[in-house]
């Protein structure tokens, strides 16, 4: 036993301590417990992985039987580790630790009682860590689902952290509702898996998956995988369920970095990669995954180019990058997907934290149009953001370059068209990220606040992440993952690499041209392409379309049919009917319940005599 349970247990403990007693603690104590628990968890991950490496097969620990019903259903509370898990564990706890440290600085000056809910923030964050680790460590689908729902809950709580702001609570509710759709698909998938395989343990399911007949694969497995994809699309913000993620930026920036960039949103990718043995038997589903991924990537990238809120830009960037990961999974390069999960965690966390640092420096300003020229005022933030932007733009040998390259090569292997679309998207990615960078750090300062560099607790995690963004690609994740997810398709064509690097550089150049060299150009373009620009600027009117097509009918239908019709007419009618019938019967029976205890006793005695008589007459007394 390597005591895997300790990994999630530390954050849980931190959650309990801070959640129960945090109100009484000083800020320092809250930080100590919150950061300490996550750091301990990280150290325990490292220690455990060192102890059980090389980890070529799945290592499982069984703690207790969680649900046992009949002979069929037997679900254990099992945690397991393999190489895939190990990557996720290191990312989650490592980045998590950095972001926790960062948050102690970022959240230090919140207004309001209890330091603006300081303890509440950290207890939620620790709870999130707990659920995320459960999700990653789970050895069966149901436990994974627990973690899945748990991170959703924490996401909801943290998006709505500033619950006095209506937009924040709305964003939280939106995230929750949209995720419900995905979770519904996921739970259906779990049912299908159980029906088909009679078990939910990964090992048992995957062992059986290979041996199924073709007709079963065509039907059930494809359906299962599609439903899994629905779940993943919800959690990982893919078309058509991506709408919640940009709004989720209402939460505090560390939350955006940790949950909505680095870890939780990649849970869908992890889940798809985890279910690779199933997907491998469902080519149609894989195709769907790839197409959805690509579609998401393109669509989000275009929207990202027009946004003015720095966090929104990065949010759409996240959606777009997640699309890349699904593209990788869809074309069978799961390890490339996970590789990108890791590098993306590095540079996107850095982007968000850097954005947070900028926001922190500008006392809450998020609009790019009110920034500019910050290069000299907050140099550390600038440098680290520069690293992240280089990485995401795919500058050679940065981490983003390495993983994106893997994905594009795999896409080319699958279908050249996908490769080209991917390259264009990469170019757009470079464009909007650098656009943000230029708008923020170059030119003249257009705002009114007094920018100041952030404290060490903020800049230190930025530095570490910058280093990881640049060099993190040298953790050769695909090689490490080979025993689990198989070999990525070979065929390293230098031409492809050059094309993708060039696309990135073109994007950077265009951004420079538009926002540094000729600042008037964007407006000219926007006017020239007015229709298109309006469409993209308004995010393709997707929210409005959902509102008109789904939300309005549901609300109206609920109001007229369900509420006024069914609830008032039928349900209330039944309830009232039951009530009046009960009253009537009770009116008759209440004569027995006269409140006179001696009458009760007399009746009890009568009953006893009747029982005795019955026994006597039926010959009970032999």
């Amino acid at each position, binding site marked *: 036993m390597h005591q895997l349970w300790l990994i999630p247990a530390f954050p849980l403990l931190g959650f309990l301590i801070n959640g129960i007693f945090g109100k009484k603690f000083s800020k320092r104590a809250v930080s100590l417990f919150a950061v300490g628990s996550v750091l301990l968890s990280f150290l325990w991950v490292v220690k455990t992985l060192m102890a059980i490496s090389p980890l070529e097969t799945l290592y499982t620990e069984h703690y207790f039987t969680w649900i046992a019903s009949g002979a069929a259903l037997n679900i254990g509370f099992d945690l397991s580790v393999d190489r895939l898990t190990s990557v996720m564990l290191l990312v989650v706890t490592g980045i998590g630790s950095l972001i926790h440290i960062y948050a102690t600085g970022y959240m230090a000056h919140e207004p309001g009682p209890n330091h603006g809910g300081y303890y509440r923030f950290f207890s939620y964050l620790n709870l999130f860590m707990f659920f995320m680790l459960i999700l990653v460590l789970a050895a069966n689908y149901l436990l994974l689902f627990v973690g899945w729902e748990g991170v959703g809950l924490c996401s909801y709580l943290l998006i709505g952290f500033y619950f006095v702001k209506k937009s924040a609570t709305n964003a939280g509710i939106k995230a929750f509702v949209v995720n419900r759709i995905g979770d519904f698909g996921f739970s259906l998938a779990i049912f299908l898996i159980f029906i088909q395989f009679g078990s939910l343990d990964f090992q048992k399911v995957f062992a059986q998956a290979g041996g199924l007949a073709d007709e079963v694969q065509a039907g059930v497995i494809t359906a299962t995988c599609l439903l899994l994809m629905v779940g993943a699309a919800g959690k990982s913000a893919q078309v058509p369920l991506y709408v919640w993620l940009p709004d989720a930026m209402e939460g505090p920036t560390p939350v955006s970095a940790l949950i909505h960039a680095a870890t939780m949103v990649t849970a869908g990718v992890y889940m798809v990669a985890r279910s690779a043995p199933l997907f491998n038997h469902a080519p149609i589903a894989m195709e769907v995954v790839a197409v959805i991924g690509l579609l998401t990537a393109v669509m989000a990238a275009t929207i990202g180019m027009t946004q003015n809120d720095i966090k929104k830009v990065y949010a759409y960037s996240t959606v777009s990058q997640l699309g890349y990961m699904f593209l990788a999974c869809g074309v069978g390069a799961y390890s490339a997907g996970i590789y990108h999960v890791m590098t993306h965690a590095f540079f996107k966390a850095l982007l968000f934290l850097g954005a947070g640092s900028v926001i922190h420096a500008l006392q809450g300003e998020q609009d790019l149009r009110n920034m500019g020229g910050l290069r000299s005022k907050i140099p550390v933030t600038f440098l680290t953001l520069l690293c992240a932007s280089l990485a995401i733009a795919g500058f050679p040998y940065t981490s983003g370059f390495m993983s994106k390259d893997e994905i594009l090569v795999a896409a080319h292997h699958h279908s050249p068209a996908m490769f080209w679309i991917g390259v264009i998207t990469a170019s757009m990615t470079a464009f909007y990220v650098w656009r943000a960078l230029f708008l923020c750090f170059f030119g003249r300062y257009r705002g009114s606040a007094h920018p100041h560099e952030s404290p060490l607790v903020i800049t230190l995690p930025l530095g570490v992440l910058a280093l990881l963004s640049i060099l993190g690609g040298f953790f050769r994740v695909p090689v490490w993952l080979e025993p689990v997810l198989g070999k990525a398709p070979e065929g390293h064509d230098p031409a492809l690499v050059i094309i993708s690097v060039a696309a990135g550089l073109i994007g950077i150049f265009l951004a420079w041209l538009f926002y540094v060299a000729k600042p008037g150009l964007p407006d000219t373009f926007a006017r020239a392409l007015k229709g298109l620009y309006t469409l993209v600027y308004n995010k393709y009117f997707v929210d409005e379309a959902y509102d008109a097509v789904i939300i309005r009918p549901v609300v109206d239908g609920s109001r007229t049919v369900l509420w006024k019709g069914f609830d008032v007419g039928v349900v209330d009618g039944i309830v009232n009917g039951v009530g009046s019938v009960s009253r009537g019967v009770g009116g008759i029976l209440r004569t027995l319940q*006269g*409140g*006179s*205890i*001696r009458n009760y*006793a007399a009746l009890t*005695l009568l009953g006893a005599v009747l029982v005795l008589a019955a026994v006597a007459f039926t010959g009970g007394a032999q």
Partner: protein
Amino acid sequence: MPDFSLPAAVPISWYLILSAVLFTLGIAGFLLRRSIITVFMSIELMLNAVNLTFVTFSYKLKAVDGHIFTFFVMVVAAAEAAVGLAIILTVFRNRSTLEIDEVNSLKL
């Protein structure tokens, strides 16, 4: 002439019938009396009747368990008396009556 001579050994059934009679009298007290205290004492009388049965069967079975049960009944009765009398005290303090039928404010 019927045989009125007493047996040398008392039949078990005599004890049991004594117990039944006492139990019945306990119920009678419960039904007939209206003072809470007397009603309470009637319950104690029933407990005592049951205890007699326990001890009698302990004799019949030649096992000590009946005595243990009696012991436990006594403990429970003691606890019951402590709490019950405290309740009676409170009731009396609040309503200055011990008539069980007058304590009926829960009635509609």
